[in-house]
């Protein structure tokens, strides 16, 4: 019969109309600024710099090798290497970035900088609410703004962070073992030619790690 389908449709829309006031399940909209869905762990936007410990200046993992700067497809990273060196987590003397800027207006969140970093110094963030009233200064992030502690990384990406921590612990143990072995070898070497002269071995062992070639 003509019009039957229209009546069925009208009944359906009426059910939706009144049902949406009664059953809350019908309304699937998440009212975003007030309500939020938890982000999936794998979500990622814009890189940040990791530092160990509590001091961002001292614990920054970045050694200013500039690989990420060269690999970045939209070229949004700008690094200026420092003149002097400072010890890294394993006690090795390294350069550090005097300037490390990321222009997030240019960044496309491709994660290539993270893939290429050999020092686990740069990671992807989850912070996506980045609107600012200053489109030039506000979207150019400096080293101070980018640096975030390792605890933060553990919080936003627990699985990845655990993996990185494990690897770095192993690297640290290896470096220490290597240093210890080198120190032992140096001590043995020092002990051999001058067996009579005692007490020199200790100072040689302390100096030894500084001679290890940077990676």
């Amino acid at each position, binding site marked *: 019969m*003509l019009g039957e389908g*229209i009546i069925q449709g009208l009944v359906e*829309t009426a059910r*939706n109309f009144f049902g*949406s006031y009664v059953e809350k399940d019908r*309304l699937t*909209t998440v009212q975003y600024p007030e309500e939020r869905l938890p982000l999936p762990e794998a979500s990622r936007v814009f890189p940040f710099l990791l530092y160990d410990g509590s001091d961002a200046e001292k614990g920054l993992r970045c050694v200013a090798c500039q690989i990420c700067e060269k690999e970045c497809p939209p070229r949004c990273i700008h690094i200026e290497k420092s003149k002097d060196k400072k010890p890294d987590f394993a006690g090795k003397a390294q350069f550090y970035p005097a300037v490390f800027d990321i222009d997030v207006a240019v960044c496309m969140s491709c994660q290539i900088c993270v893939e290429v970093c050999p020092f686990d110094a740069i990671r992807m963030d989850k912070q996506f609410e980045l609107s600012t009233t200053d489109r030039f200064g506000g979207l150019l992030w400096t080293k101070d703004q980018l640096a975030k502690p390792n605890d933060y990384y553990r919080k936003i990406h627990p699985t990845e962070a655990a993996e990185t921590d494990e690897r770095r612990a192993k690297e640290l143990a290896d470096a220490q073992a290597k240093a210890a072995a080198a120190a032992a070898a140096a001590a043995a070497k020092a002990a051999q030619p001058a067996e009579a002269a005692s007490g020199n071995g200790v100072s040689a062992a302390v100096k030894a790690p500084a001679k290890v070639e940077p990676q």
Partner: protein
Amino acid sequence: MVGGTAADQVFVNLDHWIVGHTPGSLQALVSIVIAVGAIIVVFAGLFALTTVFERKGLGRMQNRYGPNRVGPFGVLQPMADAVKSLTKEDLVPRAADHVVHYLAPLVLVGIVFLTYAVLPVGRNMTAVNLDAGVLFFFAVGAGTELAIFMAGWSSHNKYSLLGAMRAIAQMISYEIPLILSSVPVIMTAGTLSTVAIVEQQARYSSTLAHWYVFTPWGLAGFMLFMVAATAETNRSPFDLPEGESEIIAGYFIEYSGFKFALFFLAEYLEMFAVSGLGITLFLGGWSAPFSFLTWIPSWIWFFGKLLALIFAFIWVRGTVPRLRMDQLMNFAWKFMLPMTLVVILSAGIWHFLTIDVVGPKPLGAVIRWLVCALVIVAPFIALARGLERGRRIEKRTYRFAE
């Protein structure tokens, strides 16, 4: 004319008071300004309310919230929309006919406001009581086609022109069932005056009012009238002239800023006007359905009915998908036109089946009702069957694919 209660006549008395306090030479002018100003303010305000309620209602029909950010529950959304449309740049295409392009929205809004002149929105609340009120309404209402074609032609854009041609083809086709479905009311009432038509329906036998929608031909006529009105005002499912998927926005594609808002306003005002006429002709205008409800002011009845019809329009919009052009034309000429003629026939039979023919009440009234209903339902079923036959859905066979 029967005077109502104080609450019923509050606006009429206010009008008289203001006019009474102006000097004699200005009285006619002040009276006109009050009537026109009241129509513009009330219906433009209703437009603002309707836009937000339509968006919220459609949202709820699709299990969404709808706008709820501006003000409490989003009720101030029309203000945000107004600010937006006022501050937008007014672009006019270089190739456009500037004068006609500029005039089209103004002509459209002006014409639509003219149709309100004959609508009785309450007891003694009609701007102009014309003897040929219904005729005036349709004659002026047909002018919207001119404005739409002005817009479509002057924009110098192929989508505008296609939209305007669609709109005109549709509006002329549906004008005929729209007018024919109001003919039985004019036949029965014996007058073209909207005020007199409402007064005829405001009589009560026992408790029930003499609304024409309570008769079989009135019910069918009301449905046909509302379908034709939906097409006439270019509302969904008959909104082909602005089918986004085909011709973007139709005849107002080259309009931006406040001119676009004027088209939008005119479209809604047209909807209110034609709903108001439907209320006047079939739903008893400002009268109450039962005699014990007459204490409620007449203007509340009119606007209550108007809001109910607006909700019906929104409901249909949220339900029915857009028609195709050939379906639209088939529906107008093969279904609407014959059915309106059948309704006129039924109204004629109703007129002649008096107590002398069918016998006294209540049995006579029932027989009269059933006979007139049968005169409408039988052709409806035959017509529906006939139209269904040609378009049975068969399994499509592919000649080249597969």
